[in-house]
């Protein structure tokens, strides 16, 4: 095999991404390709909301981050050609599986995703969502995952979650809100005792 080309280095998204990447959310006069609404009402499955904040090393919420999520639909199918499961692609046009939100619009710097709870992608895998975090001060984006605290049995068998030191697994769990049906809370801590697990994807 010939020598590989070298990867183009990452650079920070910076503080001023909003009118380019999340223009409608921030009310700039431009469109955006993805939003916090990952699944509209027509998508089959269990509709959920995931809300959270990102905290820096001083415990302050980050007001200028961008969060992206990537997930399978309620039956565990990705809207991508590499997913060869029956009806994976094009059969669920209301569901792209991709969401993007800035944290600078919500008064408490929360991100909000409206989606469906993903199904299990493969045998042994617990439902999960890939999360990418971008912000000023991150020269390279950070990957993490959302698992669901109310899936204890499947979580216990998930190969990725089980590869994480036990005392840190809770940082990857979205917790169902006891008062609001379908609402999950998932905060991301960049540093500190509760530092979220980030993956070398």
């Amino acid at each position, binding site marked *: 095999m010939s020598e590989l080309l070298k990867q183009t280095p990452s*650079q920070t998204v910076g503080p001023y991404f909003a009118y380019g990447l999340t223009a409608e959310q921030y009310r700039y006069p431009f469109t955006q390709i993805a939003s916090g609404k990952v699944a509209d009402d027509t998508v089959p499955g269990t509709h959920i909301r995931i809300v959270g904040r990102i905290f820096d090393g001083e415990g302050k919420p980050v007001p200028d981050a961008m969060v992206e999520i990537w997930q*399978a639909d309620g039956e565990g199918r990705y809207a991508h050609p590499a997913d060869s499961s029956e009806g994976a692609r094009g059969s669920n046009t209301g569901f792209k599986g991709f969401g993007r939100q800035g944290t600078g619009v919500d008064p408490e710097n929360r991100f909000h995703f409206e989606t469906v709870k993903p199904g299990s*992608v493969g045998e042994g895998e617990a439902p999960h969502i890939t999360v990418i975090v971008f912000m000023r001060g991150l020269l390279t984006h950070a990957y993490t995952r959302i698992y669901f605290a109310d899936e204890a049995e499947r979580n216990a068998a998930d190969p*990725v979650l089980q590869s994480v030191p036990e005392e840190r697994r809770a940082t990857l769990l979205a917790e169902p809100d006891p008062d609001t049906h379908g609402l999950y809370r998932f905060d991301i801590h960049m540093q500190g005792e509760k530092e979220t697990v980030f993956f070398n994807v």
Partner: protein
Amino acid sequence: MNNSKVMPMTDQATTRDWQSHPPYLYPEYRSTPLRAPTRPLIPIRHRLSETTGPVYGHEAVGPLDADLTKNARRNGEPLGERIVVTGRLLDEEGRPLRNTLVEVWQANAAGRYVHLVDQHDAPLDPNFLGAGRCVTDEEGRYRFYTIKPGAYPWGNHPNAWRPLHIHFSLLGPTIASRLVTQMYFPGDPLLDFDPIYQGTPENARERLISRFELGVTEPDFALGYVFDIVLRGRGETPFENRS
């Protein structure tokens, strides 16, 4: 872990090359110390969740999106030096990434961002937003018309100025190939003093600098700059065993 189960898996995509990408912590860039993850990243074996990713093509792009000199006009042309920015989007094997979305954003010619948080004392341009997107062609080539961005001051250290740059956002073929980067201009004296550029491994920095090309320059119209982008490879086969 129960290894007797058959785990669905695909070929690994190529890995993130940490000799090419900046570290999380680079104290000279003063936003990093409170935001950089401090614990080692946990390795992850690529399964379907890593070898798939969002697919966006022509349907995501409006007719003027790739021409930043036209896509925000109100009462005239934007001010500044008109340029063409083009290049190829490739994977590490040198294969063109076709029909792939490229998103860009930048400051105006005076070094002012439209973003409300930017309070730099330089004029906004009523005819320039500074955001665009396009889709690569069969050779993986993208092409934008825009205005050459200006330098602007920032608070990182006394008399800190960002070099001229255009932000790029690429989704690529999988979620693992995701890249956000910045394109710089050749010969910019500010590069030597910029902690974002300097935070990049020394042997990789120059890949961030576009090159001027007369062949891309359009006579009597616009200077041409070329910026090729290499994303992580795809992994070879989409087939897998699913139960």
